[in-house]
């Protein structure tokens, strides 16, 4: 067999909107595969960044099966289904709040600093610096209230605009703005204290838990 199950749908359907595929799928269920082929990567990436690769597979698959089952409720006036899909994914992630927080706490524990007596290349130092910064981001994400985390990660990792996030979460745009503002402030503060000493304190604090 030379066919590849992962190959996207043919017939130029990539040029059709998501809404078109969803509408067609109401009578021809297999048309829904076009949505999967278009968005599986981005939904998986979003889920994997939030929950890790193991949980991401289930979450991505559940997102599309849930979407498929709810396709009759989709607002066909919305050509782009990404906000809808990421909204479903985010709701599903909501069932794994504790796992997500544990994961971010684990990511906050970056590797131990390289011992001084060993020669260290500049690049390695830079990498360790970036890792520390991300460790702080992870620690801050773990501390964020879940609703704030949803908003900031839909913006940063799902690449949605404010209105799209509002649609994904079913909240007013104003709510999105205020949650995003507070989330960003928390993250900014975390990064602002990104000198190695401050990091060590956070690190020790996290490890003591």
């Amino acid at each position, binding site marked *: *067999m*030379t*066919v*590849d*199950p*992962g*190959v*996207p*749908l*043919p*017939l130029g359907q990539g040029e059709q909107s998501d809404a078109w595929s969803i509408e067609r799928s109401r*009578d*021809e*269920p*297999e048309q*829904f*595969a076009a949505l*999967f082929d278009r968005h*599986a*990567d981005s939904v*998986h*990436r979003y889920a*994997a*960044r*939030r929950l*890790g*690769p193991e949980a*991401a*597979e289930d979450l*991505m*698959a559940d997102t*599309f*099966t849930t979407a*498929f*089952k709810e396709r*009759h409720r989709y607002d066909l006036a919305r050509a782009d289904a990404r906000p809808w899909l990421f909204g479903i994914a985010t709701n599903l992630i909501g069932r794994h709040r504790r796992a997500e927080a544990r994961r971010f706490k684990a*990511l906050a524990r970056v590797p131990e600093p390289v011992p001084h007596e060993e020669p260290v290349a500049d690049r390695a130092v830079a990498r360790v610096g970036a890792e520390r*910064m*991300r460790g702080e*981001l*992870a620690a801050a994400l773990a501390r964020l209230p879940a609703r704030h985390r949803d908003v*900031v*990660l839909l*913006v*940063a*990792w799902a690449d949605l605009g404010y209105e799209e996030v509002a649609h994904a979460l079913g909240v007013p745009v104003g709510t999105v703005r205020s949650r995003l503002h507070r989330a*960003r402030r928390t*993250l*900014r503060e*975390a*990064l602002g204290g990104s000198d190695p000493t401050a990091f060590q304190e956070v690190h020790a604090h996290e490890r003591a838990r």
Partner: protein
Amino acid sequence: MNELDELRRWEAGAPPLDDDTRHRARVRLFAAMNEQPAAVRPPGRRRVPRIALTGLVAAAVAATVLVTVDGAREGQQAKPPAVDSPNVANVAAPKVLNGAADWERRHERQTVVPRDDQFIYSKRIIRETERKTGKVRTYTDEMWDSVDGSRSSLTMELGNIMWEEPLGEGESVWPPRRWDELKKLPTDPEKLVPAIVSAGASNGSISDFTEDDRWQAYFLLGELLKAPVLPEGLRAAAYEGLALVPGVKTVEGVEDSAGRTGVGIAYPGRFKGRYLIFDAKSYEFLGFRDERISRDGKKTYVQLSHTVEWAIVDKVRQRP
């Protein structure tokens, strides 16, 4: 420093989606399609080639979407006299299927090899019974399938005329129609089954198959057997291959579209109401049983079908 940009640059330990994961998720999506009765439309017995999906599994499962049974409704309705209410037996599937392979080998005739530029004509009788009322309708379907997919294929079913667009680059249908593709399929059943499941990507022997592999095997072999013309030994190998798939069971007392009672071969965990039907004594293959649900989800139909005529022809609408 912009905290959002920093966040965007950070992959957070997430690897890209790999092909295996994508494949498993896609199969789960199609399984969900398969389980949802409201998704079923009439008549839809032959959408696979018409849609011309590129993915083997996608194509395979897309076809099952259209003939799903509504199991939940089954127990609430009166049994119409013409429709069987079979009991699943757990014993004799290999006996029936190996018997069918023997029958096939005894009766196999030299096959006419279709050229790529020709069409495979087939005529099927479909007897459809509405489960609730017992009302029976019989249809004759005719189809002309372009062998290499380079020309439009035609299906006339339930009085509808449907054209299948020529296949695009990288697209394929299951079962294949091109002779060279069919000839590549192993006629050793132990090799045939792994070769067709997961597009041959499922490593290892049948005994290592996952549940997904098993129902794919049942479904794909069943679809292969619908092809009227196969290379020598392949049909028998498909029967024997089915016998090797765990979970395949016999169903007693199944009636075919000609009114003959036979024994069904089913995969009850996944495909309720879908059987291949064999003569209970000679094990000659008689036909298929499927179920479909009306567009509004309120009516369930039992479909019995068998091929009554087929030929290799040069043009669409040409009959033997």
